[in-house]
């Protein structure tokens, strides 16, 4: 059983490029279609659960599914399959790159990826902004974004504090806001 769990999540992890979200449909295929550990409804329940909590989605999904299927050992197996192979690859690649940092062409390589990282993060920023506009409405999105810029960039308040306050505000009665929207 644990071997199947490992293979399923290893395959979903290694084939899912570009961050965690791309691996979710692959996980669904393994868990629901191939091994039939859950049906579609249960899988979307688990997905909704992990979306309700902070932190990486993939490890929550794989850890929880492993636990459901085969207890603590299943959980550990799924987490190892999700995290370990790519973490090792990442450490090897960057250590290799750093080992040759004195070579001019390696310094060039390091410079070449900075703007690409900028594009990737920029795309994520636009994606968050768009989703926020659709979910909260544009007025509130722009207001909160402007307030964040002032608090974090101009007043130097730690972003964690701003986010913690926002998380707390989600539990306030928001019905009054709806009228304003």
């Amino acid at each position, binding site marked *: 059983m644990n071997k199947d769990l490992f293979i399923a999540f290893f395959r979903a992890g290694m084939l899912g490029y570009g*961050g965690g979200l791309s691996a979710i449909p692959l996980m669904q295929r393994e868990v629901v279609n191939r091994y039939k550990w859950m049906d579609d409804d249960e899988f979307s329940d688990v997905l909704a659960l992990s979306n309700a909590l902070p932190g990486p*989605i993939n490890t929550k999904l794989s850890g929880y599914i492993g636990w459901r299927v085969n207890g603590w050992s299943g959980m550990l197996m799924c987490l190892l399959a999700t*995290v370990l192979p790519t973490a090792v690859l990442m*450490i090897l690649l*960057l250590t290799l790159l750093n080992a040759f940092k004195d070579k001019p062409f390696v310094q060039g390589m390091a*410079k*070449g990826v900075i703007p690409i990282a900028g*594009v990737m*993060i920029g795309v994520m920023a636009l994606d968050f902004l768009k989703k926020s506009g659709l979910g909260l409405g544009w007025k509130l999105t722009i207001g909160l974004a402007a307030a964040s810029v002032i608090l974090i960039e101009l007043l130097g308040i730690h*972003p964690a504090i701003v986010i913690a306050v926002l998380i707390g505000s989600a539990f306030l009665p928001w019905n009054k806001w709806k009228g304003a929207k």
Partner: protein
Amino acid sequence: MLTLYWQLFVSHLTANLLGYGGGPATIPLLQHEVVDRHGWMTNGEFSEIVALGNGLPGPIATKMSAYIGYDVAGIPGAIIATFASVAPSLIMMLALLGILMKYKESPQVKRLTKVVRPTIAVLLGVMTYDFFFDSFTAAGWIHTVILIVAGYILLEVRKVSPTYVVIGALLYGAIFLGG
């Protein structure tokens, strides 16, 4: 050393506990801890992690944690940082399962993700600016603009896999920016 382990643990814990919206949401919080607060690496080094992390398969947040931990404090550091990013939210999921099942469709819970999105977007936007500015300083504006435009077209318009785009950027850098 113990202080360093503790700092690694706390910084990864906070970044992941507040990163509503999955891996991408934790990136700017992690950057704030690693670059601005503790000075463990420069923005340039952090951008390499972001780019290579996107080019490799699998979840982005754990890959970044593993490498940052390793870079700062070796293999124990990698284990501590990865544990801090994975364990808390998973433990919360198991512990709160009953409550979550009941309230996962409730407006409060749905609002949690919604209400932090504008702030995360701002943090990601600032990071984008930082990376572009760093590149402008390191590689000059012509190469920076070429790489930004080519990167955007390949990733977003042509939907080329990030792996190939990162390999392309590494080659471009080795050939044109190595002098």
